[in-house]
């Protein structure tokens, strides 16, 4: 039946996925098995996104389904049981002056479901707040999001602040969102530009390998 759950999520059958989760739990299925099924389903969703079959709406609905399933599973979980070994830490935020969060939130979600420990600093994040979080978490990956052209300078300032704090050679920095492109990546002094959420996952996985 786990296979059915994987299919329901992967096929964007929201009602079916939640109903199956309830059935599985009622039948005594281990809650961790259900969470494993969710992870397998998200791999399928991610692959379909990468090959251009799925788009942002599918990622958002998948996020909703996972939220719903987690809520169902939670009462059955013993403390610490849901913890899985994380691949690595990522500090992410929308840079100073920019309050756009939709793209950033999708990247956070995709990094999270792909096994990263994500520290989301939110929107309009000053450079020093990035620096503080990197120091605190020792995260090796930083993701800077921005929608507007004003974000170009904020990205540059953030990278400079990271350098000034002596952390530049300890982190890899990716940029993305709205009008951001390769040129902005070079301008800001970042390491890579990603056009979408799966690109962020691919970059992050490449950097921790």
């Amino acid at each position, binding site marked *: 039946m786990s296979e059915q759950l994987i299919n329901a999520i992967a096929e964007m059958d929201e009602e079916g996925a939640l109903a199956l989760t309830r059935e599985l739990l009622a039948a005594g299925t281990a809650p961790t098995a259900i969470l494993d099924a969710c992870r397998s389903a998200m791999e399928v969703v991610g692959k379909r996104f990468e090959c251009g079959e*799925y*788009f*942002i*709406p599918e990622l958002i609905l998948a996020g909703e389904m996972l939220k719903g399933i987690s809520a169902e599973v939670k009462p059955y979980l013993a403390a610490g049981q849901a913890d899985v070994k994380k691949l690595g830490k990522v500090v992410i935020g929308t840079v100073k002056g920019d309050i756009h969060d939709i793209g950033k939130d999708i990247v956070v979600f995709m990094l999270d479901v792909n096994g990263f420990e994500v520290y989301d600093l939110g929107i309009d994040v000053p450079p020093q707040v990035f620096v503080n979080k990197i120091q605190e978490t020792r995260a090796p990956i930083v993701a800077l999001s921005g929608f507007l052209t*004003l974000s170009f300078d904020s990205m540059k300032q953030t990278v400079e602040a990271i350098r000034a704090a002596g952390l530049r050679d300890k982190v890899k920095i990716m940029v993305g969102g709205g*009008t951001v*492109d390769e*040129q902005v990546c070079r301008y800001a002094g970042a390491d890579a530009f990603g056009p*979408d959420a799966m690109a962020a996952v691919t970059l992050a996985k490449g950097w921790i390998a």
Partner: protein
Amino acid sequence: MAPLTREQKFEARFAEWAAQPIQFATLEAEAAYKERVQMWKDVIRLKKPVRVPFLMLPGIHPFLHAGITTEEGMYDYEKMSAAFKKYNEEFRTDTVVSCGMVGSGPLFDILDYKLYQWPGRGVAPTASYQALEGEFMKDDEYDLLINDPTDFFMRYYLPRVFNALAGWATLGPLTDITELPFTGPYMIGAGLPPAVKAWETMLEAGREALKWASFVGATDGYSIATFGLPAFIGGACKAPFDTLGDTLRGTRAIMLDKFRQPKKVLAAMERLVPLAIASGVRQATAAKVPFIFIPLHKGADGFMSDKDFKTFYWPTLKAVIIGLINEGIVPYLFVEGGYNQRIEVIAQDPDIPVGSTLWIFDKTDMNEVKRLWGGWACFGGNVPASLLSTGSAKDVRAYCERLIDAVARDGGFVLAPGAVVDHCTAENMHAMIDTCHEYGIY
């Protein structure tokens, strides 16, 4: 008398635009104005104009270029006016760069606008205004919108999005007022304190808008008459999917609605089509300018599949486009983001007459646009915001020349930045304009 054909309506609107009652400062300005109007008419009709025209949609660049903050520009009408006059004097684009798009800070304060943050209200003084989407229409309110869009806007949407109009939520629908005995009971709500505050706010907002408009009119009017730059945006309307996705439901919610209640989404969009057309026609007629601006957002690459684009986005947008064209209006589609997946879907659509639309692209492959759309629709854009903001004038010029070489040689092409211009060096702006005058001559 036989009704006018759309071709006759197009001719009439362009003739009216050319013959606007303007007191030109000089004969040269008048000649430049008429030459530019002709250039736009030619390029839309896919002919070769005298040269490649240049079009740009100003964000806050005119303020920053004048050395003032966005906050100053939005709150001090004198400063706004001075900045835009200077801008139009220095940068001769092929339209007036209008100060009408950035809006009035005091007006938004009076209304207590929730859909946006702007300098002094949530974002930095030098930033641009930024949308703050929300579910201003709830997921179970589609039927209210479909049943009576105006009533929904007046009693649900506007009271939520303008906090100072919250009192309108206590009114009954205006269509309740049908007979003498029902008039008194209806009006009770209109006199209760929350509604009274809303009426007073409307009065104050109306007065502020008039004050602002007098500055916009005088500022644009000065630049039009002095430099011969025609007004270009006769008004604006939206793709129905974007009205739902930007305005009413927000990006996340509309994407989920597409799965959870697709029939409601489709029905609501159908309902919005005639409203968008009527709005565009009304504005273009009042302005005596034949272009209606339609910014495209939530149908871009990545935002949905091609299949969904064909089902949810394109049919009602196309209906709006055709509705405007039938009234002699040119839809000016500002295609934000990438449209590489979409250009094939839209290409050479037989229902849209040849040479009747203007499309400005951003991150879309212009060679592909040329290949698929050549001889069908006027297009342009694509000069990257990143290049204008961080590149050199030499690079900008080289980019523009490559673009002209690749796709402009047959006419029907407009050089334009791909995105709204907030940040750009003066040298880069000059480089684009100079390229049109020096390299873009036919």
